[in-house]
């Protein structure tokens, strides 16, 4: 039984099989986040290369597909980060450091959260919303973006995030607060067109 498990695990980690088994699924995931097909193919290739180098660290807690998608997610954010200068997305500046500006010294809202004119929970809005979410993540400092992706997109608990990023729990809460506030603001400015 142990040998069977082990040989299955080994075959799951055979890079030759990855492309046939998971290539199309990764490609579709990438296409759901960007429209450039050539870039999507590049990201899939880079994902496989990264996975190849990290395969010895993969302990099989998640399925191979989930693990590969997780790597691809970070690749998508990196892609948008590189493209940030070319994007038409309205920059929110040094958003992560500016979250304190939302409140005045009395603790009252200085920059009021606007009323969203669309509801991202509606199915037909979700794809657009997620695409923008990834673009907004590219505007965050890398560590904040990583923390956000791990918490909100991968559903990791904060202690796992602390371990992965070598930070304290208090740090992680502050980072996540800043990331969420910045992403919310970025989405509002670029898609939902806030009302006063």
């Amino acid at each position, binding site marked *: 039984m142990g040998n069977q498990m082990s040989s299955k695990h080994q075959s799951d980690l055979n*890079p030759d099989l990855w492309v046939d088994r998971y290539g199309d699924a990764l*490609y*579709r995931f990438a296409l*759901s986040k960007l429209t450039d097909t050539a870039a999507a193919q590049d990201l*899939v290739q880079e994902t496989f290369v990264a996975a190849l180098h990290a395969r010895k660290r993969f302990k099989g807690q998640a399925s191979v597909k989930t693990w590969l998608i997780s790597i691809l997610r970070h690749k998508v954010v990196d892609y948008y980060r590189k493209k940030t200068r070319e994007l038409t997305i309205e920059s929110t500046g040094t958003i992560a450091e500016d979250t304190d500006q939302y409140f005045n010294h009395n603790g009252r809202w200085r920059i*009021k959260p606007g009323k969203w004119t669309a509801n991202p929970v509606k199915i037909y809005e979700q794809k657009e919303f997620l695409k923008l979410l990834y673009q907004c993540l590219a505007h965050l400092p890398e560590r904040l973006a990583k923390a956000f992706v791990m918490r909100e997109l991968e559903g990791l608990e904060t202690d796992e995030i602390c371990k992965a990023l070598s930070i304290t729990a208090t740090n992680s809460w502050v980072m996540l607060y800043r990331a969420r506030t910045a992403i919310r603001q970025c989405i509002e400015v670029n898609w939902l067109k806030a009302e006063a």
Partner: protein
Amino acid sequence: MDRQLPLRERMMIWMHVLMCHLCFRYKRQLKWMRLVAENEIPYEPSPDDPPKLSSETKKLIKQRLHQELQNEIGPF
């Protein structure tokens, strides 16, 4: 959203959010963000024509992976 607060703090926040409509809005919007992110699903194409990597692209990726493996092992 990231940890369980003591009951007293939770009650205080709850009372505050009830009175502060901007806080209520902010909280609801963060919840929406989380809901969409949690349910992130890969692009679902029409079943007739799902986008796929061409066999040529797959071949190129495999070649690249073999090359990376060679580099990892080093020259004989």
